[in-house]
């Protein structure tokens, strides 16, 4: 026998279930008067630095149907590439930008929408720079453990070409699953859970 390392095990994940909105966005679920607002609905104010953009998309199942009961969260750097987090030691992020958003997919068409700003570039560990990106986390009924992925920007081809994460994707045609096309100020990011267009999900 040797000494016990003493580590604990992470609590196992369980599905968010069909009623995740009761807990995470109760006002959206029609439970009003408990919290003033649902967390994560507003990321910017009129003093936020950076280019205003809209990120819109759906989470699509293996039969091609959009999920109408999912919850999508995003986390991103500010326009200068800094995160609004105590673990950010490179500088102070824009105090007018939360960096975090939460949106239920619509019960009608399954669309999620975030009004945010285009993030700056943040460093990878080895000093290379990552391309601008938004981190996504998706939970829903039928998803046993939250899915992490990233959205990149189609109009950042040069930065995307040198991004360390995109470079790790062996099957090159799958890179496109992480790159959102732009139309005006709107980026469209559809997340496919299965099939030919299955999004690259991350173990991070």
């Amino acid at each position, binding site marked *: 026998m040797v000494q016990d390392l003493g580590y604990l095990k992470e609590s196992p994940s369980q599905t968010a279930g069909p009623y995740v909105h009761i807990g*995470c966005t109760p006002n959206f679920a029609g439970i009003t008067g408990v919290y003033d607002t649902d967390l994560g609905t507003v990321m910017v104010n009129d003093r936020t630095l950076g280019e205003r953009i809209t990120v819109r998309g759906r989470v699509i199942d293996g039969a091609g149907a959009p999920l109408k009961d999912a919850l999508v969260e995003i986390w991103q750097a500010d326009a200068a590439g800094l995160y609004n987090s105590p673990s950010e030691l490179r500088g102070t992020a824009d105090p007018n930008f939360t960096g975090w958003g939460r949106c239920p997919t619509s019960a009608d068409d399954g669309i999620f929408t975030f009004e945010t700003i285009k993030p700056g570039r943040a460093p990878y560990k080895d000093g290379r720079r990552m391309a601008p990106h938004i981190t996504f986390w998706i939970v829903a009924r039928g998803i046993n453990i939250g899915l992490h992925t990233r959205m990149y920007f189609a109009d950042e081809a040069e930065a995307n070409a040198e991004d360390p994460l995109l470079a790790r994707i062996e099957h090159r045609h799958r890179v496109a699953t992480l790159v959102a096309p732009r139309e005006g100020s709107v980026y469209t990011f559809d997340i496919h859970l299965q099939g030919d267009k299955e999004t690259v999900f991350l173990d991070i």
Partner: protein
Amino acid sequence: MSDFSNQKPETGAFFQRDRAWHAPALTPGYKTSVLRSPQKALLSLDGTISEITGPVFGHSILGELDNDLIHNFAKPGESAIGERIIVHGRVLDERGQPVRGALLEFWQANAGGRYRHKKETYLAPLDPNFGGCGRAITGEDGSYRFRTVKPGPYPWPNGVNDWRPAHIHFSIFGHGFAQRLITQMYFEGDPMIWKCPIVTTIPDRNAIEQLIAPLDWANTIPMDARAYKFDIVLRGRRSTLFENRMEGN
């Protein structure tokens, strides 16, 4: 946003997640997972600044009754119907360190097993004084507590006769986005735990037992509420002592 700005910031990447301890994505006994489970391998990446950071919430977001589901939706002077309980515990990381300032959001059915939700079809009645949501932020020692009524079990459309054991859903924010977790708490002694196709998506019996809260007699308040203790463990961070400094530090 943090109330703990005097604390030394944590910048290490997180321990690799033990995927064998969690449910796999595809669990056919839980039918909804069949079309909602990724089929390709996940792309592994040691945490970058995008995952080791995360939003932190201050106590200023909390209302006075956020941790009291018996009263936070009830009419003045009234309270929710059901077995009164206190749920308390600590949020720790895999190193056993308390996670201070963690935001917990919880939601549950009422004492009859009915959710306040427009898609809910179970014939059990709504309780006009029960909404079903609450939240809390952990203290310096990682502790949290809230008051509620014990949720009832309920049937759900999966197999012909599948029932959920009594449970409370939890969403937890630690300090890094890679720690993001949603799970469920079950109650000691409930024989329905082992019959549930959602519980048994978790392959390891010890892992399931990690989600079962024991009755905590010592913390029961006489003539008021029984207590259940539910500790939650989030991913731990590696020490940053000998890691490469990130560019710009």
